[in-house]
């Protein structure tokens, strides 16, 4: 019982913190996104520990390893897609080759 209430209160706090950080423009630009993402990851761990009982698993911990493998897969897929799509969009919408080459520091 205690575990669930603690988990509930923690996630409420984390969500409200992220919400007010954005609404009141507590930070701005890059470090605001950094804060939000950090809060989201902390809340992920809170939920996994308190609600999904990831710790209470006897024997070889297949649930945990499946989760870590999936997290790796998601990281590769989402980060990979973002890098590739941004790079393609950047290279195809810049007017002339010169600016591309300067940004990519390719000497003639």
């Amino acid at each position, binding site marked *: 019982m205690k575990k669930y209430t603690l988990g509930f209160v923690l996630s409420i706090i984390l969500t409200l913190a992220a919400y007010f950080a954005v609404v009141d423009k507590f930070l701005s*630009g890059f470090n605001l996104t950094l804060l939000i993402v950090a809060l989201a990851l902390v809340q992920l761990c809170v939920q996994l520990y308190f609600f999904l009982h990831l710790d209470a698993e006897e024997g070889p911990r297949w649930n945990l390893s499946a989760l870590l493998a999936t997290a790796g897969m998601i990281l590769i897929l989402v980060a990979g897609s973002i890098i590739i799509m941004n790079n393609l969009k950047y290279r195809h919408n810049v007017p002339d080759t010169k600016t591309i080459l300067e940004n990519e520091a390719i000497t003639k």
Partner: protein
Amino acid sequence: MHPEHNSGKYIFGFWVYLMTDLIMFAALFAAFAALRISTFGGPTMKEIFDLPQIMIETLILLMSSFTCGLAMLAVFRGKKKLSFLWFGVTFILGLAFLILELSEFRHLINDGQSWTRSAFLSSYFALVGTHGLHIAVGLLWILVGLYQIKTRGLTPFISSKLVRFSLFWHFLDIVWIFIFTFVYLMGVAT
């Protein structure tokens, strides 16, 4: 504290299914990340997101996750009526979340910002819509669960299904946290 079904193959099999669902949402997130700025002259994220309502929805979903936890405590202690009550509350909260979300969608569509307007809106409706669809499936599952509790009581067979439902419900809550952060907060922040 857990019925013998917990560390068996059923729970692990369902957990692996949840992992495939996570990867499905990851693909939707990748599509959203690539298309979030292609608004094609249409409304950008700042203009269409009403953060207070989204905040209420998030709190509702967190509460429903909490009541689902209480319901599972009742199930493990074999208290049929208490678990029935808490699952009912979880159902109502989930329904409230869904109604709020659908009203937000209807509001957008009435303003002419439906999914055919731009790639950004398409990917927004697809991502949040898929989560909404999962919530609807969860609600249907609660109804079946409630009926099973009433007619057959908390037998190991029924309680193992309820354990799997609680995994599903908490997992949906986690996905919503990422949607709330990466879609709404990041949309308004940047």
